[in-house]
Every structure is written in structure tokens, then in C-alpha cells.
């Protein structure tokens, strides 16, 4: 049960139970849908961009605790960031959940570091990264569908 507790940390369980920014953004100028065809999980990410700045980020959808908490913590993390900063964060996050981020770099991820336990569960990496793929799709193009495949 040791590694299970590192996967389902209190922070993740809390964001699953009460996800932040779980809403639509009226008049959002960016929107993307994410879909994991293997498990049927779907989510929508809305962004309010001002130039390169992410003024607001929100999501809705159905998914497991890992994907819900990841989407919730992601919207918190990217709000107020520039596009390039958000993309860099995704890259750090991707390396975190695939076990390729040097340990001295982990603290810079802040609360997102809670997903370090995903490394032990390769089949769940897609759950954690689906929201980020969807975010990137929203950042790149106004209306798109992202997929983990």
C-alpha cells in the first residue's frame, strides 16, 4: 500500500473531491476537448487569453481522480502565466510523471509535484497528462480536440 499512498495523496484526493475552476468560461476565446479513447475519459478546457497571457483557465468533464485532480491543479497553476511558461510547465510535468525529471527540479513544480507518484503506475500517465494535452491544444488553436493517442 506504500506506493498507493504516494499516488493518491491527500492533495490529489482533495482536488478530485472538490475540483477548482470546474466551470465554463463565458465568452472564452480558447476551448479544446480532450479524449482518452482507451478509457472513455473526456474533458473540456476553456481559456481566457489576453495576448499571450492566460487570464483565466477552467475545465469540466468526466474522469478518474488522477485526471480530475490533474486538470484542477493545472488550471490553478497556469492562471496568470504566459503561453511559453505554461508550455514549459507541461514539459516539466511530463518529465515528472514519466520519471525523467531530475529530483532537484521537482520542487519548482510546486503543488504539481504531488503527481510524482504516477511514475510507479505507467498505465495512469495518460490520465495525468490528458488535461495538459488538452490545454496545449487550446493554446495552439482556438477550437480543437486533443487525444492521448
Amino acid at each position, binding site marked *: *500500500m506504500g*506506493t*498507493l499512498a504516494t*499516488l*493518491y495523496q491527500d492533495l490529489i*484526493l482533495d482536488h*478530485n*473531491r472538490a475540483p477548482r475552476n470546474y466551470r465554463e468560461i463565458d465568452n472564452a476565446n480558447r476551448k479544446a476537448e480532450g479524449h482518452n479513447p*482507451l*478509457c*472513455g*475519459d*473526456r474533458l473540456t478546457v476553456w481559456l481566457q487569453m489576453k495576448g499571450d497571457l492566460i487570464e483565466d483557465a477552467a475545465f469540466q468533464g*468526466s*474522469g*478518474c*481522480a*488522477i485526471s*480530475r485532480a490533474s486538470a484542477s491543479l493545472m488550471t490553478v497553476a497556469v492562471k496568470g502565466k504566459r503561453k511559453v511558461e505554461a508550455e514549459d510547465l507541461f514539459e516539466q510535468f511530463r518529465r515528472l510523471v514519466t520519471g525523467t525529471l531530475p529530483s532537484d527540479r521537482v520542487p519548482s513544480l510546486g503543488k504539481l509535484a504531488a503527481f510524482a507518484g504516477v511514475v510507479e*503506475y505507467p498505465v*495512469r500517465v495518460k*490520465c495525468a497528462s490528458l488535461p495538459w494535452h488538452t490545454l496545449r491544444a487550446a493554446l495552439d488553436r482556438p477550437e480543437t480536440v486533443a487525444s492521448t493517442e
Partner: protein
Amino acid sequence: MRGGIVAEPVVGGADLNLTARQPFDVDRVRQDFPILQEQIHGQPLVYLDNAATAQKPQAVIEAVLRFYSRENANVHRGVHYLSGQASNAFDAVRVKVAQFINARAPHEVIFTRGTTDAINLVAQSYGKRFFRAGDEVLITGMEHHSNIVPWQLVCEQTGAVLRAAPLTETGGLDLEQFSRLLNDRTRFVALVHLSNALGIINPVREITRWARERNIPVLIDAAQSVPHLPVDVQDLGCDFLAFSGHKLYGPTGIGVLYGREALLDLMPPYQGGGGMIETVTIERSTWAPLPAKFEAGTPMIAQAMGLGAAIDYVNAVGRGSIAGWEQELLQYATHLLSDIAGCRIIGTAPDKAGVLSFVLDGVHPHDIGTILDAEGIAIRAGHHCAQPVMRHFGVAATARASFALYNTKAEVDALAGALKNVSRMFA
């Protein structure tokens, strides 16, 4: 066979006695399955994903090993000793399968890669030849994707239209709607015998009777029913029936298409190649008689040896005994899970076997799957390749425990205990 199970007599290939004559000796059965000794994450394996694939008894493993170690040769080609022996053994498995499902003749048994391959064979051979624009193919809302997509493909090719009979609130087939959808345009009926997502048994005998009155061929997807229930193609009255070896304790890579001879004779080959021809010139070829017409290329010989051993094993334990024990497990599990707060069983129609699908309030099935895995319990979480069923119940996914003859009530207790832990963790 290890374990020394006393063989029950099998009459006409179907043992319809559903009550075990004596208490089912599950401990003895478990000794026949080496994988059940494995530890997963330091815990004894509790394997409840049998609807995905079943574990293999030692007799099946040994049959495959023996073939490759001592008997390997291609069939129906060589004049040498081993080829003759392999051909005889391969043909004997076909006879065994025919007896197992009570086909009228061994050549009504076509070996395929599995259930999916068998359904595709019928869709692409029978369907493509006989469906016309405006014809209807009737399936149900309970089908596995493998009994939906092959029909979509052939409908696209022929202009036929795919119709699906809806389900009732409890997940059973809506028979009134089904009979209404069966009309003068219906050219084919394909439906599942035992739903992989819900465990619900369809009244296929009644449906084949309705279809026969209208002269409509019926294909039964028996992937889940063959391992759990006695299946007799003549009693069911179907024209085609498909199942997989690996869910019946046999190897992957082999399955069976049963087809009524009169229909198989009308159908063009599915694939061309060696073994399925009579004569070949560059201009044209003529087809070999059944079953070779539908078995192009070198068949799955070692897998057939394994399938033969699996059928022997199931016959020795007794299909009635297996069905009885699994029914006991299903009822016990249904009872325990119904008592867990927030646990909802998906698919509650009365006639069920082998499969228990459920959701837990506030917990996604994938999280259930991961947490149970940490305790060595293997279940399936997801849409079970039956997305229309999930949509019917308004869920994205379910957790599914599916039983086999080697599962125990202690394992069901472990499942229920672990689910209570999951509920606590997410409360």
C-alpha cells in the same frame, strides 16, 4: 489431468444439468491452474477479470508445450509422419469442438483467430454477398464493439442499414421493441448470448424462433456464454455462433465459427490463400469443400491442441457444475456488493451469469481498479468495448468483476473488503 476430477458423462455434447451433484471442489480445481500460486504486489492473486481472458489449466499449457516439443509439423500437407500425426490431432479437435457445441457435423466448425474474426468472416462473406441497399441488419444495444463494427463496415459496403434493439431500464433486451424491429427488410440478426459488460443472458432461443419464422439467419456472439453455460447450437436454433478459445481456458489466437452447412455452402471465401482451394490457375480458382474453404493459410495448430485440452478439461469438470458454482459466486458477490454504501450494480435484469458490473459513488472505476490491484485483485475498469451500453446507463465506465470456475467465496470477500477501503479513502 492433475487434480483427478471425475469426468461427468456428456450426452450429445451438452451437459444440461445445472445443479452440481456434489459440493463443487474449488480447492481441487485451483491446483490445476499454476498462475493462481502467483503473488501480485506481495499479495495472493485474486483474478476476477475472466471475461477479458481466463487463466489456463496445466493440461492446456502442457498440450501446447507437448506439441511444440515433440509433435510440431504443418497439417494437411506433408507425407511425413509428424505431419500426418499433426493433421489427425488437428482434425480430432474439430470433432471435439463440434461435439462440445452439438454441431451436426465437424465441417460446420471453422477455426478462426477468435470471436471478432469469426463475426468479421460472416459479415464480409455472407453479408457482402447477400445484403442489398435498404436491407436491415438487426443487433442489440448490448453488443460488444466486435458485434457492431463488422456490421457497420458491411452496411457501408452494401447500403444496408444497421438497427439496434434498445435495452430496458435494468439492462435486459427490450423484447417488444426487438420484435417490432424484426420486419420484412431485416436480412440478418446478430446478438450476444451473455453480455460481457453486464452479465445479462439474452433469450436467444426465443429470438432465433422469431427469426426462423421469417427466414432470417441469426448469429450468436457466444464469447462469454460458452465458458459459463452449456451451449448447444441445435437447441439454440442459431445459424452462426462465434466464440474464442482464450476465454474458455484455452490459448489466445484461436476461436470458432459454427455455421449451418447450408449457409456456409452459399458463402464465398473470406480470405484467399493456401489450403482453401481445390485447383488454382492464373485465371481462376475453385474452392475446397468445408471447412477448408474458410481456413486460408496455415491454421493455429498448437492453439488447437490447447483448445482441445481446454474442452476436455471443461467436460471433465462438467459444464453444469461450473455454471452452478459460478452462479453461487455471482449471487454471493451481488449480495455483498449491494450492502456496500454507494455501490450500484449496473445491469440488474434477472437472468445473469458470470459477470458483475458496478460503480461506486464518487469514485471513478479506474481508481477502483488501481487500488484493488495494490491488493492483488485484478478486475476490469472501463467501457468494456461496449460504449452503447455505458451510454444507456449514463456512465462513462464501470468496474467489472467476472468469475471463473476457480474463484472462491473468500476471493469475493476480499473484493468486497477492498471496495469498502476504496469508499473510505474517497469519502
